[in-house]
């Protein structure tokens, strides 16, 4: 995984928000259509991970694209347009929240990785691991991801859903790589715990063995 592409060296929020017509509006529109518009679904998913509200996400996507269009002259052709858009999206979100910071206490990523393995060990011991292997994790994960705090959810969406490297996610979120790593590992540990609960709530009794519902004789 990881994204080997480079990215624009310009911070779109540090330049004047004016349209650049030096190469003609037609050329600008053409390159914007080709390079920026195809990522709208991805930007929407990221915006939704930040806002948690469909209407707010739509507003953020629109703001992102308007800012991207006005700053298109700062985008470096051939660099990673999606990463550039994610960065603008994150800044648009912060602006909409009056500079609410996407920051939480930095956790110990290694401790979370080890705790996650221990949690999985417990799942193997109580049978929930085998039970989960028989279930569609999608619905449970949707709820579990939605329940994550926004900074953790943003890290999961960028790295696990949008295939961004730790380094790219750190750049987009404006935090150190270690912070992305710790948020990611903490989030995955929480998701793992939610999946274990899901197996129990699905009416499956681990002690009865895989595939047997509670109450079966």
């Amino acid at each position: 995984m990881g994204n080997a592409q480079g990215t624009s060296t310009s911070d779109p929020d540090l330049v004047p928000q004016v349209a650049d017509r030096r190469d003609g509006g037609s050329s600008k529109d053409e390159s914007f259509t080709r390079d920026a518009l195809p990522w709208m679904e991805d930007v929407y998913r990221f915006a939704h991970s930040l806002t948690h509200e469909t209407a707010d996400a739509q507003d953020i996507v629109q703001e992102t694209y308007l800012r991207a269009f006005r700053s298109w002259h700062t985008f470096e052709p051939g660099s990673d347009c999606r990463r550039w858009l994610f960065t603008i999206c994150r800044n648009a979100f912060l602006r909409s929240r009056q500079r609410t910071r996407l920051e939480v206490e930095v956790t110990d990523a290694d401790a979370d990785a080890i705790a996650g393995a221990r949690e999985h060990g417990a799942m193997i011991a109580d049978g929930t691991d085998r039970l989960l292997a028989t279930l569609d994790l999608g619905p449970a994960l949707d709820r579990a991801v939605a329940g994550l705090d926004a900074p953790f959810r943003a890290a999961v969406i960028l790295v696990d859903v949008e295939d961004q490297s730790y380094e790219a996610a750190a750049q987009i979120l404006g935090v150190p790589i270690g912070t992305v790593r710790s948020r990611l590992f903490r989030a995955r540990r929480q998701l793992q715990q939610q999946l274990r609960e899901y197996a129990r709530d699905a009416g499956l009794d681990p002690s009865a063995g895989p595939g047997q519902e509670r109450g079966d004789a």
Partner: protein
Amino acid sequence: MPDGIREIECLATVRLLWDYLDSELDETRMREVEHHLAACQACLPHAVFGQRLLDALHAIRDRHAMPPTVRAEVVAALRAAGYSRGP
């Protein structure tokens, strides 16, 4: 032991597991974790479960579609700002 890599313990493997599954380790570290997992029946299930979790997370892409009206609304806003094309 293959050339150029060290034997690593279970604890080190678990600590590196997410980085390994995310391909965030350097080549030597990747090979060390890979080598340990190939030989360790205690650690391998953690890797298999972790990969399944990541695969299921990645599938969120297919379930969280953008509402169909958003694209048209964004393009309309862009046109008001001077954009002259349509997707």
